[in-house]
């Protein structure tokens, strides 16, 4: 038996979460095979071997030249059909979850998304696979955990991002080629065009995020937050209440259904700290809440707080920065 890891990559650039999936796969004590889809990923063998892949399966087909959820799903499902691995592990990302959902649908197997850990020490069946697995996974974007049992001949799981720390396990991988049988219809859901984003600091990568909530009060009142963010080389984010009011674009929304941020410091201004927002902000290294309500959830969960009206506090911080820079 083996464990199959689906390598997430975009036209040959590997997604770092793949190494977390490989690390999780190694912990199961069976040989780890990694499958790459499309010739653009052929150059990844050494990186995959360094993270413990014993075999790299290179799937080649014209319809795998770019990402397509149906073509990727059928390719992985066919390989699983040929080799019957005890588990398939993928990244808990948009693509990883999407591909394994397809594999589960095609093979009529259960699929458990966004796992934190799994315990395979249950009773072993005759095929040598532990059944069921005891799994801990995230719900509500990470604010609640679920323990569940997964019973299947081949277990399909994705690892939630940062659940395990990727570590290396240097080795040499052999390669094998796999030619899936794909039909022209598989091409209907392959990417046909792309629009590249302009380079610059994004909400997801900014070292400082200045967030505004309902307490900001209007679209115009975000100007002092913009000013502070630009002084700090950061960007402005907002809560779902703000986007629902039409004050700012959804691209600025921090939260479960918006962007997950991980800045060095998050300045949360006039934000109550509902679950929806908190799960998007909780990976911040430090959080400073500015709020009139000392009992606000955001204040309780933050590392630091200023109790006061953001409309006075934010401009005062900006003025103090300018004063020290000019001193």
């Amino acid at each position: 038996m083996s464990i199959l890891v689906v390598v997430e990559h975009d036209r040959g650039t590997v997604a770092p979460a793949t190494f977390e999936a490989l690390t999780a796969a190694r912990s199961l004590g069976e040989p780890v095979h990694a499958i790459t889809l499309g010739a653009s990923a052929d150059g990844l063998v050494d990186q995959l071997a360094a993270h413990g892949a014993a075999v790299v399966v290179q799937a080649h087909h014209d319809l795998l030249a770019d990402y397509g959820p149906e073509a990727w799903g059928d390719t992985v499902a066919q390989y699983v059909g040929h080799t019957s691995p005890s588990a398939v592990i993928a990244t808990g990302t948009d693509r990883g979850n999407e591909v394994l959902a397809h594999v589960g649908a095609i093979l009529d197997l259960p699929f458990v998304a966004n796992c934190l850990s799994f315990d395979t020490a249950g009773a072993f069946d005759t095929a040598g696979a532990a059944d069921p697995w005891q799994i801990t996974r995230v719900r509500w974007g990470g604010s609640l955990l679920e323990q569940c049992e997964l019973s299947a001949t081949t277990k399909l799981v994705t690892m939630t991002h940062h659940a395990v720390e990727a570590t290396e396990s240097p080795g040499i991988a052999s390669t094998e080629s796999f030619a899936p049988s794909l039909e022209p219809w598989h091409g209907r859901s392959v990417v046909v065009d792309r629009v590249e984003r302009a380079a610059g600091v994004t909400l997801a990568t900014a070292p400082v995020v200045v967030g505004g909530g309902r307490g900001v009060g209007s679209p115009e009142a975000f100007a002092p937050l913009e000013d502070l963010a630009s002084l700090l080389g950061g960007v402005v984010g907002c809560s779902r209440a703000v986007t629902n009011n039409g004050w700012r674009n959804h691209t600025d929304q921090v939260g479960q259904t918006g962007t997950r941020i991980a800045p060095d410091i998050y300045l949360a201004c006039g934000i109550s700290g509902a679950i929806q927002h908190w799960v998007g902000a909780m990976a911040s290294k430090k959080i400073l809440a500015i709020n009139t309500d000392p009992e606000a959830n955001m204040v309780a969960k933050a590392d630091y707080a200023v109790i006061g009206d953001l409309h006075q506090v934010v401009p005062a911080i900006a003025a103090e920065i300018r004063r020290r820079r000019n001193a």
Partner: protein
Amino acid sequence: MRVLVCVKRVPAPGAKINITADGLAIDTAYLAFTTSPHEECAVEEAVRLVEQHGGEATVLTLGPAEADEQLRYAASLGVAKAVLLPIVGADWDPQRTAAAIATAIAELESADGPFDIILFGNESADSGGFQVGVRVARSLGRPIVNGIKGIEVVGDGTVRARRESEVGLEVYALPTPVVLGVKEGINLPRYPTLKGRLGSKKIEVGQIVPDVAAGGQRMVTLLPAAEQVGATTILGHGPDAAAAVVDLLEELGVL
């Protein structure tokens, strides 16, 4: 154009999620319920598609009898028909949910013809299984792409759909009939009008009682996530705290 939108009734938690004593559900005694956020936008998108291209939108949910509330909310925004797949007790697992929805869709389509576009939310806010839409689409033999933040019907039976990626946008050109998993941000949902609210009280909610076997994922218990511990350091009150804040920013090296 015939559009179907599938939604889920979920609790609307505030700052904290409490678990029931048996560990099998979240304590909703003091919570309101809502339509899962991605699906709120899917409903809005369904209504917009019909406004632009004519036809009719239908909303469908698998859930408790109380999910009638979410169906009527969709109706108050302009969805014409509503279908409830009633279940009793705990949430169904994703395989079982998808099988029930696929069966119901086949029944609706055999009566009134195929849906050109079926919309799901990318994932539900509560269980977050990331798979029901994909399983339904596969079962119906239709294309599906998830994570959609833009839909454009370009004629000749093609839908152009946009999704965000790490580096920008990906564009897909999909033939109808098609299934799409949409994400919040695709639109800004409208609020219901008074006329819409009144009208939604009168619509007849169809029922299709699902009868499918459980899948291979079984929930055992819910657990609270580890809370971040440690007290909050209060840097001060009002604008006088600015100096302490800037001291902190200097200390953290972000200035």
